[in-house]
């Protein structure tokens, strides 16, 4: 069970962030220079791979008790952060991620940036290189941490790495096929699902690391995950109804299609 959940969590976490990074890379590639955008992307991916390669063995060498305490706590903080955002978006209190809008904004910004002095190895356009590099690094850093911490706790960092790499390959392939931002990917629902998984495993490992013994041991995860999902759905519905009362009508654009299932 842990292996398949580890794969799914790493895969979907990486897919969501890859969609966001792809939007920026596409925008600077189309308007500025594909060569520089792709070089910036490649360097960003290499830095992320180096982070995973350096942190993975270091974290894996920590004894399981302290590892579960610290890493469980961190996963829980990340998971609750993702859940909070997903609940606020699904209930209409926060705008949904609009990849088309972000794409257009990035296109305008890249066009208005004008000529930027560049160096040869950046591929001719340092603006495109820097923007693509930053997008990939910043969007990917949290995923790198999730891959390393989740993988280390499950004692299977390679599986988490394979899941993350698969997600990147699929998202990039989709972007090449679509030739535009992947606005149809249900980012909020995926974030919601990943948040549930991270919060569930973070709760399980964090409490174990602090000394608790779960009834049923690992099997308790089969209860924790649905309970976390149910609690999150209940919070979403509660906020939606609260929002609908004073304003009369919930914003259809914010609420449509994001009910976590």
């Amino acid at each position: 069970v842990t292996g398949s959940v580890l794969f799914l969590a790493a895969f979907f976490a990486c897919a969501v962030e890859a969609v966001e990074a792809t939007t920026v890379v596409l925008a600077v590639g189309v308007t500025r220079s594909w060569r520089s955008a792709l070089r910036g992307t490649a360097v960003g991916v290499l830095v992320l791979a180096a982070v995973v390669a350096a942190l993975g063995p270091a974290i894996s060498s920590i004894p399981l008790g302290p590892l579960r305490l610290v890493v469980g706590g961190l996963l829980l903080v990340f998971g609750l952060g993702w859940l909070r955002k997903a609940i606020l978006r699904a209930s209409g209190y926060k705008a949904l991620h609009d990849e088309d809008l972000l794409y257009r904004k990035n296109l305008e910004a890249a066009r208005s940036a004008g000529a930027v002095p560049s160096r040869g190895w950046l591929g001719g356009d340092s603006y495109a290189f820097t923007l693509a590099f930053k997008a990939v690094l910043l969007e990917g850093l949290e995923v790198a941490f999730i891959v390393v911490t989740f993988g280390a706790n499950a004692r299977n960092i390679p599986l988490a790495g394979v899941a993350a790499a698969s997600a990147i390959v699929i998202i990039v392939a989709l972007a090449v096929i679509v030739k535009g931002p992947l606005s149809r990917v249900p980012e909020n629902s995926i974030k919601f699902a990943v948040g549930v998984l991270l919060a569930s495993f973070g709760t399980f490992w964090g409490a174990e690391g602090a000394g608790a013994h779960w009834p049923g041991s690992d099997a308790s995860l089969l209860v924790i995950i649905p309970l976390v999902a149910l609690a999150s759905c209940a919070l979403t519905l509660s906020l939606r109804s609260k929002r609908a009362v004073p304003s009369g009508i919930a914003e259809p654009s914010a609420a449509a299609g994001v009910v976590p299932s």
Partner: protein
Amino acid sequence: MSSVAAAVRSFYAFWWDFIIGDDVTLAVGVVLGIAAVAAIHEAGVASWWALPVVWVVALVWSLRRATRRSGA
């Protein structure tokens, strides 16, 4: 000296934003929850329930603050 201070500040700000994110309530809730588990476990009582209870309270609190800020 000021550039060093600025670098330290931006380093600190990066990690704060990276780990804590939009609302410190969740991180505080997780730390308190883990501390509660450890304390209850030390007392010799089953403690697995404490962490989920504390983080649910922290999440509800954090969502309430966010929805109040949005003015709805």
